[in-house]
């Protein structure tokens, strides 16, 4: 094997690694760019100069509107009320009604399909309908000038909106009201008219007719100034919040951004690891070229000439491979965008790509440039240079490979830990309900009126033969709860016997309400972690008394803190007080109830679901929408999504690890070339080829194991750092550590097998003769 072949082979492998890494980085940055593009489109569709004004408690009136609209930097201001809802008797539809100012549609760029909006001071009974509401209310006729009835008044339809574009976040809450998705689902009426109808003498509902949510548009380029002026106007009212809409939209993209940021960071690291590979290969190729460098030095090249030449060559290799990667990535964008169903864009983030490529190119060229420039010309000409400097060369090369392997391992360890933790987090959030347990709750689909699940429904379901156990839960509105140490708002949730078996929460201290307490309506309660902390800052909640509305109860348990609000809950369990059903009259909210059903062993979840739907349809004719689901299955779907993200991250980390460990091959090549004379001598004194082979393979393995140890240490430090700063504890299974180490060793063995094999086949005589070269 000629020396040139060593360099060419290594350079080829290194170039492929760089090209693949660059392609991956290019695609990931395109994903990141796509996220921003989507966000920008969303903001643009409404306008970047839009801001919202909200009051945590209290409302705004027409005087507020006037004062804001007179501010110099504010172009226009409008608002909306909270929504009210009603059922259309004929169609059994639930409609969401919002009172809005006359300029609301213009402010939010909501286009009318037909008709017109209403005037500024109107108190007429007119309405503008969202597109889906229009087709639901008037499935066959023309909605324009049609009439519908609401709270005893007949409303005339004066306009119908265009369908809300999906690019504007349809399907996401964007500020109309928390539980309403988009304007397609709304009935818009003049806010003064809305006020006339919903001013009910009921605590908490008396503000329904007033403007709770204001929208403002700043003059061109004056958003910041407009927000400042509005803030100054409400100076002293701490609960008024003025925020640009764009900032609120960013929340919708938080998860996608985080995932793509993480992927980009990993891809960037993989590219850097690839550059260390190029550095190793270039340093190895230096051996082939020591004579050339000596000749150049003899003919007048100074160190900087040689350094620049080698730096240029390595950088060129890096950049040209990176360019190939970029082309490959660009070609893959369209099919990947189709496969992922997401926007992939080329834009400013690709400057990061160029920067990363240039930086890694310089990094890759530095090692060979320094080594080459430091060569002694007289020795280089006689090809003795590398032998005399071999220790430094090999050590540096090995150090580079080791650092690359360590970085690859560290990244893999952290990614695996995060993936594992995310899945644990999901399970904790969903409390790992038993497979097969069904949850029944009022359906929230479309506008059809949901079933108000009553306790009688529960009793009917619980008496089914196919039910093993059943639990009833229903929540109230917020209520004041007090202890000897303080008072706080909490949501009261009534439950029935069997709650502990379906896992409403993990008990942190004390115990769950016993079936006896639940059945006999004993005045005992279990607190969520948040309310427990507020009522009992000293942590001594168990056995203490709490004052509920019209009831004193004893705390028997406190639930463990649960991260986030699971999608199936109406309330945050951390802020809930669980009481036995019947212990007090909770005035539970209609439609905010759950029934948990565990089927008997011989009944499948699907069969039970069919039975439940049929029974409830029979009990509530014409209003048969209930949602029956299996939380364990839903959780598994989420886990599957999380796994997909983890797999993508892991694939990138694995790529980094492969790139890093193939660099070990270059190191072994260097070692073999430098120690050719040693190989010849060993053979001359009787070493068999297999011994020579093992010698080099074991050296590669040793370096990999040491580097892996360092990488694992770095990974553990990274996890410690995450644990200190993240909300959740990052945990890593030792099995993954061993698997990662094993994978690194396998790749290192595979990449070092070639040079080790070459070494084992060297002719002793020629190896001794060519030992210097």
């Amino acid at each position, binding site marked *: 094997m000629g020396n040139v072949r060593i360099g060419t082979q290594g350079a080829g492998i290194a170039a492929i690694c760089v090209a693949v890494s660059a392609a991956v980085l290019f695609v990931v940055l395109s994903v990141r760019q796509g996220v921003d593009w989507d966000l920008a489109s969303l903001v643009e569709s409404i306008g970047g100069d839009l801001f919202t004004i909200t009051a945590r408690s209290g409302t705004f009136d027409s005087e507020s509107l006037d004062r804001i609209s007179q501010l110099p930097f504010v172009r226009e201001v409008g608002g909306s009320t909270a929504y009210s809802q009603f059922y259309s008797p004929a169609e059994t539809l639930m409609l969401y009604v919002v009172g809005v100012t006359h300029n609301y549609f213009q402010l939010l760029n909501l286009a009318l399909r037909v008709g017109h909006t209403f005037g500024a001071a109107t108190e007429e009974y007119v309405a503008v309908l969202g597109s889906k509401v229009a087709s639901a209310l008037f499935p066959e006729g023309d909605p324009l000038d049609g009439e519908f009835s609401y709270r005893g008044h007949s409303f005339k339809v004066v306009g119908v909106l265009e369908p809300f574009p999906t690019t504007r976040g349809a399907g996401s809450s964007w500020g109309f009201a928390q539980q309403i998705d988009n304007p397609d689902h709304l009935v818009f009426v003049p806010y003064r008219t809305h006020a006339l109808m919903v001013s009910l003498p009921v605590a908490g509902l008396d503000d329904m007719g007033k403007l709770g949510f204001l929208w403002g548009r700043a003059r061109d380029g004056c958003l910041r100034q407009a927000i400042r002026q509005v803030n100054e106007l409400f100076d002293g009212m701490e609960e008024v919040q003025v925020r640009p809409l764009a900032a609120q939209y960013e929340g919708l993209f938080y998860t996608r951004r985080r995932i793509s940021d993480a992927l980009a960071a990993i891809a960037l690291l993989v590219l850097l690891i690839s550059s260390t590979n190029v550095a190793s290969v270039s340093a190895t190729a230096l051996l082939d070229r020591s004579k050339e460098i000596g*000749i150049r030095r003899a003919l007048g090249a100074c160190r900087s000439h040689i350094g620049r030449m080698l730096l240029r060559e390595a950088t060129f290799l890096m950049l040209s491979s990176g360019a190939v990667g970029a082309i490959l990535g660009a070609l893959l964008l369209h099919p990947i965008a189709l496969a992922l169903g997401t926007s992939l864009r080329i834009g400013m983030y690709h400057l990061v790509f160029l920067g990363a490529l240039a930086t890694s190119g310089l990094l890759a060229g530095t090692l060979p440039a320094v080594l080459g420039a430091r060569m002694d010309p007289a020795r280089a000409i006689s090809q003795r240079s590398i032998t005399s400097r071999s220790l430094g060369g090999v050590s540096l090369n090995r150090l580079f490979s080791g650092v690359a392997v360590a970085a690859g391992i560290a990244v893999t360890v952290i990614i695996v830990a995060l993936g594992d933790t995310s899945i644990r987090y999901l399970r904790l959030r969903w409390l790992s309900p038993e497979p097969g347990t069904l949850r029944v709750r009022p359906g929230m689909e479309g506008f059809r009126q949901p079933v108000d699940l009553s306790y009688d429904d529960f009793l009917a379901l619980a008496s089914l033969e196919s039910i093993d156990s059943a639990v009833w839960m229903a929540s109230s509105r917020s209520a004041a709860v007090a202890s000897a140490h303080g008072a706080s708002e909490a949501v009261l949730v009534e439950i029935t016997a069997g709650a502990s078996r379906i896992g409403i929460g993990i008990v942190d201290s004390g115990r769950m309400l016993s079936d006896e307490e639940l059945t006999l309506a004993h005045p005992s309660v279990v607190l969520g972690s948040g309310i427990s902390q507020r009522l009992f800052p000293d942590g001594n909640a168990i056995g203490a008394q709490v004052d509920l509305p019209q009831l004193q109860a004893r705390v028997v348990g406190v639930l463990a803190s649960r991260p986030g609000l699971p999608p199936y809950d109406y309330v945050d369990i951390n802020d809930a007080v669980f009481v036995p059903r019947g212990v007090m009259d909770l005035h539970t909210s209609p439609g905010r109830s759950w029934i948990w059903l565990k089927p008997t062993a011989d009944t499948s979840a699907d069969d039970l679901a069919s039975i439940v739907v049929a029974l409830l349809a029979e009990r509530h004719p014409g209003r048969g929408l209930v949602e029956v689901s299996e939380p364990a299955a839903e959780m598994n779907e989420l886990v599957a999504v999380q796994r997909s993200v983890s797999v993508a991250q892991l694939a990138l980390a694995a790529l980094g690890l492969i790139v890093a460990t193939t660099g070990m091959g270059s190191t072994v090549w260097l070692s073999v070339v430098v120690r050719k004379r040693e190989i010849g001598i060993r053979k001359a004194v009787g070493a068999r080829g297999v011994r020579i082979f093992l010698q080099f393979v074991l050296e590669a393995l040793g370096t990999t194991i040491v580097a892996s140890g360092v990488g694992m240490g770095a990974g553990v430090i990274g996890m410690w750092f995450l644990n200190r700063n993240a909300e959740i504890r990052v945990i890593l299974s030792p099995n993954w550590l061993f698997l990662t180490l094993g994978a690194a060793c396998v790749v290192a063995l595979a990449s070092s097998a070639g040079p080790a094999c070459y070494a084992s086949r060297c002719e002793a005589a020629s190896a001794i003769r060519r030992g210097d070269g």
Partner: protein
Amino acid sequence: MIELLDIHKSYRKRSVSVEALNGISLSVREGLWLSVVGPSGSGKSTMLNIVGLLDRPTAGSYLFKGREVDALSDRERSHLRNQCFGFVFQSFNLIPQFNAVRNVAIPLYYAGIRRHERERIARGLLDQVGLTDRYAHMPAELSGGEEQRVAIARAIANSPAVILADEPTGNLDQKSGHEVLGLMAELHLHGVGVILVTHDQGASSLAQEVIRIVDGRIVSRSAVDRN
């Protein structure tokens, strides 16, 4: 032109120090053809490397054209090497990936001459050494004698004051060896100094002076009687 004063050169192999040159003092005037002879390992090549600024002495002083060169920076030494010395090696040392023209043009590149001009000069030099029809040939496509002629063309590219030749005929047959020595003699006639390390009796007879080195010391220096 070249003044070596009590030059020592030692190499360290682990804890053992090996003296390659042991107090060499030598004066070489401009345009002199000096042959250096001696047994293998006597320090001839080491001395040539120090004279050609490829290596630095461990002790002693080296004056080139009256200027102390040990104190010079790498850049200054490289510039001197490029402008004042031409190297001819036993194994030719052409860069195998470059054709004849590009090989000859290397010193011109480091002298900062533009590409077009470099190639023009390189072609002229190849014409001068009789390789007009070998411009685009790669080293592997040339005979040993032709390779050495390319090396000589490369050595004189920047019109050096002295050519340093280390066994230039060692790898050549007799005919090619004579041709190479003939070329060097021709250059010498044009005023170029030559320091020739050789075992070849015939080659040393072309010199004006011969020094003999044994164990890193000059043991004799004599003028060659051409009659």
